[in-house]
């Protein structure tokens, strides 16, 4: 770890963006390295497509770079970042829908046949976890965007309800009831998918 990295590691997000606003480009560097992976995970789970997810995160940082002065310390920096990334992910989803509508032959990602077994996963436990990840991701894909967003922010990114309420611009109570409904929907979809899988398996054997 370089001296500069050591210095920035101790700074809060808000201190970093403040420095970047003052022209310190290393602070931007630190912001990127601090946020890129968690944003990627969020965008990936939202879109279930690695290229689109990476584009969304790239665009998020470009916007932060361009609009650094738009950030005011009345909000947490992470709230601002997740708001930008969330909006971009939703836009990406709309674009994809439009593409699907225009080109009916173009198979969407959610229509893709899922490979249940990853050849790189060897042990039984790994196979099981890959299987589980794909099934869960498929269920997430079937959620409407606002349910998808809330469940990712709360259950996967593990942000506090108060912050999710600010990111989604809905009252705290709405976040709580929405996340509860999203979980129920997810659970229902999962058991549907499991049922279908079971039927397919018995039909094949």
């Amino acid at each position, binding site marked *: 770890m370089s001296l500069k990295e050591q210095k920035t590691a101790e700074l809060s997000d808000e201190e970093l963006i403040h420095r970047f606003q003052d022209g310190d480009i290393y602070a931007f*560097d630190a912001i990127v390295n601090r946020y890129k992976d968690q944003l990627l995970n969020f965008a990936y789970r939202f879109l279930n497509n690695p290229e689109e997810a990476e584009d969304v*995160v790239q665009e998020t940082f470009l916007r932060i770079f361009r609009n650094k002065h738009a950030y005011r310390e009345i909000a947490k920096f992470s709230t601002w970042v997740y708001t930008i990334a969330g909006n971009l992910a939703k836009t990406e989803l709309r674009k994809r829908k439009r593409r699907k509508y225009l080109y009916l032959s173009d198979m969407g990602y959610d229509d893709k046949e899922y490979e249940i077994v990853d050849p790189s996963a060897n042990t039984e436990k790994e196979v099981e976890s890959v299987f589980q990840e794909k099934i869960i991701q498929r269920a997430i894909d079937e959620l409407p965007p606002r349910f998808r967003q809330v469940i990712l922010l709360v259950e996967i990114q593990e942000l506090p309800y108060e912050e999710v309420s600010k990111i989604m611009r809905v009252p705290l109570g709405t976040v709580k009831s929405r996340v509860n409904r999203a979980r129920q929907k997810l659970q229902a979809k999962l058991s549907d998918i499991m049922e279908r899988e079971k039927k397919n398996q018995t039909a094949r054997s």
Partner: protein
Amino acid sequence: MNLCDRMKKNAFLYHEKALEPSMAARVQEHLDQCETCRNHFQQALLLKKALKELPRRRTSPDFNAVLRARLRTETYRKPLFSFPAGVGVWQVPAYAGLALIFVALGAVLQRNWNPSVMPSLTDRSAVVQTASQPAAGAAPFAAGRASIRRAPVKNYVDPGTVANMSQWAQQSKKRTQTTLARYDEDSTWQMSRTPNTDRSLVREVRQVRF
């Protein structure tokens, strides 16, 4: 909605201990008697756990390099956005408007003072050209008009304003370049310092990745 359905709605809140005590007691009582609901509640718990344990996806190794290339492209391609801090993009139309007012004022003054040489349409566009060129942005638009200019026309824009604006633009560009150069020398970005910073570089970097 039967009793079981009503109970199932509480599964996650029950696990989070977010239910009213009286409701929690009723749920507990029901669970003791109903195997279907017990299974459902168990499933909810597993789902919560599975969500937490989903593998964390990470950015590709060249993420920073791609971002770097994009930022460079942007910095060089959009001089309009590189006004120094404190001069927002929103102010540019204001300055352009100010320039136009001077131009109009100039035209009016010229007509009033010397009605016999009132400028023709082409002359007036030439005024716009000289006025807006240093103010950034309007130059390509005005360049076409410049070719049809016939007589040299006096510049009615306050020279101080124009000088300030182009100075700002230059200083800002210089500052950005210096910062970027310094940044390249000592930074965690894994990017070569080639001046080739256009779209093709972004494409190159992308091709490596996919």
